[in-house]
């Protein structure tokens, strides 16, 4: 539990996402065991913790890729809908970036980014292409627009994946270990794009092992362990003055020295 007097830098904004007592089970395994967390407008919330602690699961519950067994998830003031059509509409307001990029291999970068606006939001080919070009330029890959994913490096593919999510003009971006599958040289280019996005005021929930990113770019950090949040607070607190044993253990195992 965090101290009531700890300042929350962007806590004044609207609550975009609220997790209340979220429980998720896979058969007999409890992946999430009562998670409480708020994500405010414009905040970058980083979820850290050991593998299997539930961070990615929480993210996948957020856009309904997984359904929860207990608790509530609220998005922009309303509970996540169960109806398929309504859920899809909610998904268009959330952008998700996957660890394995998951670009569509049979489409060019341009087509990948235009696919959402065209097929789902039905904005028409011209508008979809305009957005695609704009987003690809934004992530620094305008010249790669006609290339297929197989011709792109991992870092480039991930940047296209980010552009693809951004083209939907979402209210929040969900990142599921976006750099875990990348070569060290290309991690930087992706983190830079994410940093720029954060500076523009995008609301982001980021599951990551990149502690430096969480420290420098995050506004709020939640430490997961065995399906619960053991500690949450501003990065300064988590990384410099953690209040729980678990957090200290985790950080020391990573060799984190501040």
């Amino acid at each position: 539990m965090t101290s009531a007097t700890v300042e929350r830098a962007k806590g004044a904004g609207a609550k975009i996402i609220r997790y209340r007592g979220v429980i998720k089970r896979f058969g007999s395994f409890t992946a999430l065991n009562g998670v409480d967390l708020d994500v405010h407008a414009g905040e970058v919330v980083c979820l850290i913790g050991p593998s299997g602690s539930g961070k990615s699961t929480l993210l996948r519950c957020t856009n309904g890729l997984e359904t929860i067994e207990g608790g509530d998830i609220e998005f922009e003031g309303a509970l996540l809908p169960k109806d398929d059509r309504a859920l899809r509409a909610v998904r268009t307001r959330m952008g998700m970036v996957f660890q394995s990029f998951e670009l569509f291999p049979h489409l060019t970068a341009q087509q990948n980014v235009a696919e959402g606006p065209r097929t789902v939001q039905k904005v028409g080919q011209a508008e979809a292409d305009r957005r695609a070009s704009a987003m690809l330029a934004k992530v620094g890959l305008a010249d790669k627009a006609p290339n297929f994913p197989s011709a792109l490096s991992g870092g480039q593919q991930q940047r296209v994946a980010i552009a693809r999510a951004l083209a939907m003009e979402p209210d929040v971006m969900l990142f599921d270990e976006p750099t875990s599958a990348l070569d060290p040289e290309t991690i930087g280019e992706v983190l830079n794009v994410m940093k720029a996005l954060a500076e523009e005021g995008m609301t982001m929930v980021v599951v990551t092992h990149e502690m430096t990113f969480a420290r420098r770019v995050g506004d709020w950090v939640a430490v997961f362990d065995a399906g619960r949040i053991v500690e949450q607070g501003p990065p300064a607190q988590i990384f410099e003055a953690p209040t729980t044993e678990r957090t200290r253990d985790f950080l020391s195992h990573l060799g984190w020295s501040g």
Partner: protein
Amino acid sequence: MTLDWNVVWQHRGQLAAGTGTTVLLTIATMAIAVPCGMVVAALRLYAWAPVRAAATAYVELFRNLPLILVVFWAFYVLPIWTGLGLSPLATGLAALALNVTAYNAETFRAGLNSIRRGQVEAAMALGMSRAQALRRVIIPQALRRVLPVLASTWVSLFKDTSLVSVIAVSELAYVAMQVRAQTFRVLEMLTAMAAIYWLLGYPQAKLADWIQRRYAVSE
């Protein structure tokens, strides 16, 4: 032993007609079995439980029966079941189509299943419906994987058409063996029959190889 290869040339018209029927049967069977195979595969994957079970039973049945038996069985059973007087050609086509549809259904099902789950999730994360994800993301990718197998199935089918000769369909094998019976030129006619199949089948097999190389997917 005197050989008279002239016999082959004399009956070239019949042999050509038989070859034409073989080709026709192959094309017609695939024309039926590809769309039907897609339907059965879709039923196996996405329909509700009793339909899924029925589709699976159909596929398992026809993959575990000799085609020649299916041909005979169709010859005697289909007229009774459908009440129609079907020509041997139609019966043969039906038997071939039933058989190849089952194989195609398995091919399509495996193709669809081979697409990574992450692709479906990425599509859904964009807000696509199941149908949209199928149409825009899964099927285009599955098609690539399925093409080499379909080519291989085609090559096998071309050979399998010879089996409908047992119900007197005038495709190449039947015609060649008829001429043999009429002229008693056993070695010449049987060798010619093998040679014609070889001349037609060999390039098709090589084409299937090329398709396999061109479209092979390595994960």
